């Protein structure tokens, strides 16, 4: 187990190193700089040039590279140009928002998706199965941001039952938080629900068709006992895989959904940074997202090892 962890960690570290190169490099390709955001259309180039100097954007590339690596090795992502705070601080501020959105969507999609997938698998080939699968595929084909817009029009504008956007922290008001997170979480969850339902069904069907299920059957054990003790533990591995994929994909989804619902999360931080050329935030944000992504993968790997004794040996 320890060797397994070390190997995974070493691999993740290597990837992270490459990610840091990519996130540093990408900003050197972007045209424009944050000076523009401070100034309106009437600003003249020498005003821009002054501001660039003021913001430290005129340092040579080599110097910036050295600064970047000496900083991130200390765990310091630098200071935002536009937000007047450290990048780490800015990310941590928004993290609970994104995590609560992604977390609730994940729970929603896993619970509904696994349940739907299990129903479909046990009713394999029957109308219930076909209906669930058709629904899942349909859900999978909806652009999530569009669904968000439609939900806003229907539930916030027409019916007026839920807010159109914004975010209320749970520390401020629990009901306000639930109300503000409901529509975005649904918009995010629908697509992933379909995905998980399909995967769960496929995984369970595969497990249920395996020899050891027949063995269990030959023991005369009850169907429920077989499903719970033999079927589910084995289907857990593929379900975990999907959950990992979905967790990552949700992270991507929040980027857009936060934009639709004006939710101040990490995704909007990064998009805002890209659109305003807040370079430290772009770099730090991308690095952070990659770190989260890799952590999710690592967690999934560790869960495998717990669920599936075979993995530990590899």
């Amino acid at each position, binding site marked *: 187990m320890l060797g397994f962890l070390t190997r995974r960690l070493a691999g993740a570290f290597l990837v992270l190193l490459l*990610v840091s190169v990519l996130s540093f490099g990408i900003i050197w390709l972007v045209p424009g700089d944050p000076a523009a955001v401070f100034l309106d259309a009437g600003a003249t180039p020498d005003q821009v040039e002054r501001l660039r100097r003021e913001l430290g954007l005129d340092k040579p590339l080599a110097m910036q590279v050295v600064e970047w690596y000496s900083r991130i090795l200390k765990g310091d992502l630098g200071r935002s140009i536009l937000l007047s705070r450290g990048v780490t601080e800015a990310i941590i501020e928004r993290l609970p928002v994104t995590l609560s959105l992604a977390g609730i969507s994940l729970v929603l999609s896993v619970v509904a998706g696994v349940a739907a997938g299990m129903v479909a698998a046990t009713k394999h080939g029957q109308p219930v199965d076909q209906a669930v699968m058709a629904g899942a595929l349909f859900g999978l084909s909806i652009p999530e941001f569009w669904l968000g817009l439609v939900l806003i*029009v229907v539930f916030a504008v027409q019916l007026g039952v839920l807010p159109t956007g914004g975010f209320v922290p749970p520390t401020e008001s629990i009901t306000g938080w639930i109300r503000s997170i409901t529509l975005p979480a649904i918009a995010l969850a629908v697509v992933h629900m379909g995905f998980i339902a399909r995967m769960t069904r496929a995984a369970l069907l595969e497990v249920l068709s395996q020899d050891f299920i027949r063995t269990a059957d030959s023991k005369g054990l009850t169907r429920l006992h077989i499903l719970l003790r033999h079927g589910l533990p084995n289907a857990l591995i593929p379900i975990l895989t999907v959950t990992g994929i979905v967790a990552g994909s949700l992270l991507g989804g929040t980027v857009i959904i936060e934009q*639709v619902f004006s939710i101040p999360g990490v995704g909007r931080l990064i998009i805002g940074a890209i659109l305003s050329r807040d370079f430290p935030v772009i770099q730090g944000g991308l690095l952070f997202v990659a770190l989260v992504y890799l952590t999710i993968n690592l967690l999934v790997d560790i869960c495998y090892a717990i669920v599936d004794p075979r993995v530990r040996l590899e």
Partner: protein
Amino acid sequence: MTAEAVLDLSHPPSKPFRETLARLLGHRSFVIGGFLVLIVLIIALTADLIAPFDPLRNAARVRLRAPDSVYWFGTDHFGRDILSRVIHGARISLIIGGATVLMTGLFGTLIGAVAGFFRPLDNPIMRLMDALMAFPAILLALTVAAVLGASVVNVIIALSIATAPHTARIVRASVLVIRELEFVEAARALGASEARILLRHVLVNALGPLIVRLTYVFAIAILAEAALSFIGVGPPPPAPSFGNIIANGRDFMVVAPWITIFPGLAIIVTVLGLNLLGDALRDVLDPRMKV
């Protein structure tokens, strides 16, 4: 040894094209999905003939008309007919999807095949792919599109960069399995050059998973184009794409929801068709692959 080994006649490893086609045509998902995609394709190809209006024509008189008998899908704030724009939008959306599939197919295959076949390159290449895959695809595409600027070509490049690593990984996995198989060994023994082996045998046999993946890439590209447009880095106006029609209707979502709704439905139909096709292809070409 046993009687079974003697009596059991082995099947040829690759099924003839005819049989595959027959199985596809008998697959319900393939028929429905194919039908949907074909409809969208025909609409895109005949856009000039079937669109009732010029999709670019401004007509201030009829701004923000709700759907009626003349403007079936309503009009936008320029007074442009949404139906005509959706019809023409299919064209650009399909071009973006198709070109992304081509680019991803080409580069994903190339990268995956090289990594799978030339062992010394495998590790560096795949770590780079891992690094690219460490970002959510949409964020990667968005960043690249922001770097390159908004244009149809740049959207295609951004989407290809976002989708190619996964494709490369799939191709590499197929190559790794196939290169160890007997017939590749045999070809090598007969003195075929590495490149020839790679092309003739390995790739032909890795085609199944690749086709399945690329079908899904098509669907992903259509969805991602819309998302990029929404953020403002999609194909530039005034030429319509599914995504930029929606993006255009954003400010009018409340007073003129039809601008947003109809292209969204067009996306759903197209993506649903592609997903159905992908499912059928997966069942037939690559039964072990997961969703």
